[in-house]
């Protein structure tokens, strides 16, 4: 089967074409499911942050170009597509609507079914597909999300249970705000992490772990109070050490509780080198196989939506309610594979 997938939850509009020869949802692997194309256009980071209306305008303007590029790169015609899928949520309402309208129009025009995909589930699925993990403890770290997840049976069905999560902002959001407030270049997590590597002096900052849960807003306020009093590099270095340490500590707690044999980090922040290093040390200490989602599938893109849609199609689990949903949680629906 061929699936066209659209991603538009936040700063990225993406279109991907996936081809799968898998016989069942559980058999989906890199060997039988290929990404034919995975095109994206990303809204540039600016000091003003993300303004939903502007993001949506950007996506609507870029969508036709990205769509054509994805089709021509994959050498696939719209008529060959069996399913159209898109990110249903969670995300920014204005942005979700662009992807939804795109996917729904294509589905109606071509008379093929529409598959809504939960963006959070897609991050987990693409990581499992790319790294060949069966049942990992997953740490999903991105701008809006910081969750420690594992498959868990509840009410007679499988769910991605959230064992730990942030109680306020996502870790990526925290890194982005730091980058913006310190006016780094680029003014986001990338600028922040680059400068953190140059820090020398470790400054004491509040270290918050609430059981398996985390909170970053207190750390953010405390770190920003040091602005101007210490070199920005030291602030970034200390804040990232503390933030990542709390994250790894919370994950270690969950790992001791669930006893998973594999660990996987996914999402945009999974690309942070220091975080990967900390996790690999922790995983080695517990004798757990550790994988990081490859960079192309770390940030938001549409291939992950397509791969998840393959699993939905093969397990005949296609939601009827197709409307975009800003506040979808990963544990709100059962996983049928």
């Amino acid at each position, binding site marked *: 089967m061929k699936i066209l997938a659209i991603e538009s939850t936040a700063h990225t509009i993406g279109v991907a074409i996936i081809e799968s020869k898998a016989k069942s949802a559980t058999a989906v692997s890199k060997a039988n499911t290929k990404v034919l194309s995975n095109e994206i256009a990303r809204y540039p980071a600016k000091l003003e942050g993300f303004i939903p209306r502007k993001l949506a305008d950007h996506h609507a303007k870029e969508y036709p170009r990205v769509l054509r590029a994805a089709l021509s790169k994959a050498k696939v015609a719209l008529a060959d597509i069996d399913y159209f899928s898109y990110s249903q949520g*969670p995300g920014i309402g204005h942005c979700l609507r662009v992807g939804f309208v795109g996917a729904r129009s294509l589905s109606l025009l071509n008379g093929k079914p529409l598959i809504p995909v939960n963006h959070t589930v897609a991050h987990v699925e693409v990581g499992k597909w790319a790294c060949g993990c069966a049942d990992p403890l997953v740490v999903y770290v991105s701008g809006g999300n910081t969750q420690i997840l594992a498959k868990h049976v509840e009410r007679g069905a499988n769910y991605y249970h959230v064992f730990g999560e942030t*109680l306020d902002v996502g870790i990526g959001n925290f890194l982005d705000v730091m980058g913006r407030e310190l006016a780094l270049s680029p003014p986001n997590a990338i600028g922040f992490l680059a400068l953190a590597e140059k820090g020398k002096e470790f400054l004491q900052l509040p270290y918050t772990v609430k059981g398996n849960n985390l909170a970053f807003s207190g750390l953010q306020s405390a770190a920003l109070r040091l602005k101007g009093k210490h070199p920005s590099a030291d602030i970034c270095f200390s804040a990232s*050490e503390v933030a990542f340490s709390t994250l790894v*500590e919370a994950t270690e707690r969950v790992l001791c*509780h669930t006893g998973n044999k594999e660990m996987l980090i996914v999402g945009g922040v999974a690309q942070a080198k220091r975080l990967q*290093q900390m996790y690999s040390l922790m995983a080695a200490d517990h004798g757990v196989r550790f994988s990081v989602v490859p960079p192309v599938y770390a940030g938001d893109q549409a291939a992950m939506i397509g791969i998840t849609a393959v699993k939905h199609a093969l397990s005949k689990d296609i939601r009827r309610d197709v409307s975009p949903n800003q506040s979808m*949680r990963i544990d709100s629906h059962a996983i049928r594979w």
Partner: protein
Amino acid sequence: MLARGAEAKVFHTTYDGEPALAKRRLPKAYRLAALDNTIRKQRTRREAKILRAARAAGAKCAELLKEDEQNCELLLKEVEGTLLSREKTIAPKQAFEAGLQLALLHDAGIVHGDYTTSNLIADGNLVTVIDFGLGEFSNAAEEKATDVLLFEKSIAGRANEPALRSHFEKAYLLHARNGHATLKRVKAIYARMRYASQSQ
């Protein structure tokens, strides 16, 4: 070695000729040494202080025999029973007891910080609270509510979750001085969590 938690290892040892448990916080390779040493010492010292205060308040918890801050080690008297998280089914009476113990701690100005079924040892219907490693002295509604939330999250998915939750909350309300305010705060935390549903 008896048990390995996320933070510490627990060994069998003796104290004054009697069997005892040693809880040692081992260095974490992933953490910067400066940060790691501060955290481990701070937590060892604080845990000892809290254990003494908790026992003085009448809560059921392990007896502290000796404190060794330099080696980040505490010597404790052994507690009989099984971990509540390892129990196939948790009885509502055990959840009630867990609520009562939490109320005793909170009224003594102690928050546990990791109040899950993995840190409660059940012996019949009696429940002993262990591992005050993330504990703090605080009367803040937010911190107390976090304890309640952690317990409720740790019983999530169990077949009798609603009964456990109601017994736990009932005991807490009956015994804690500001029980109502704390439970109200729990609702507020649920509401502000990322993408939380309105019904929780």
